[in-house]
């Protein structure tokens, strides 16, 4: 009965590779997010989708491409991985509304060698 799930939990890969992280929520929410947590634990929004439509696209390299096949899923594809992409990536979801809470997944720790 996990609310927001992500796969994989750990991802170790070589520079230059392409990888994907998947996120699914079973809360019935209409908005999903990707956040990046760097080595200093700082959290920053990357993308947000509302009902499969991109609504937030922060200053992120275009090697990062989110895809939302339906409102319960938001995947993150990363091309040509670089060392600086190493971080923990969190997916979150909420029901759109000013006071609504965002619920986070367990995170995916990406290590680029």
């Amino acid at each position, binding site marked *: 009965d996990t609310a*927001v799930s992500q796969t994989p939990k750990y991802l170790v890969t070589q520079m230059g590779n392409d990888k994907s992280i998947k996120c699914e929520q079973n809360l019935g929410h209409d*908005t999903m*997010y990707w956040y990046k947590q760097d080595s*200093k*634990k*700082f*959290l*920053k*929004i990357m993308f*947000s989708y509302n009902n499969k439509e991109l*609504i*937030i696209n922060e200053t992120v390299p275009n090697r990062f491409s989110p895809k939302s096949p339906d409102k319960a899923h938001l995947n993150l594809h990363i091309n040509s991985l670089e060392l600086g992409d190493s971080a923990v990536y*969190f997916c*979150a979801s*909420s029901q*759109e509304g*000013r*006071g609504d*809470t*965002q*619920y*986070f*997944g*367990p*995170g995916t720790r990406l290590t680029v060698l």
Partner: protein
Amino acid sequence: AQSVAQPEDQVNVAEGNPLTVKCTYSVSGNPYLFWYVQYPNRGLQFLLKYITGDNLVKGSYGFEAEFNKSQTSFHLKKPSALVSDSALYFCAVRDWASNTGKLIFGQGTTLQVKP
């Protein structure tokens, strides 16, 4: 620009003592404020939020937070700390200035509760 500041990188408290984790914010319009906790190698867990109403908000695990508009603060408190409360705590504000509702997080405060 909307922002959140957590002035302390780390807070140390003895078990059984009260704890406070500080947060100040800067927003245009009404602030929607949140506290999250992150245990080691885990995701963020929602603790509590202030949207409107009573300035004292009660949340999970015995935590509460006090919204102070004049001081633009939203400090997290607990009357009696537990060793199991040791974790990383994030304050966040919902950014409606950008009309996207994204969360802007503070830099986090590590709470260390010693037995």
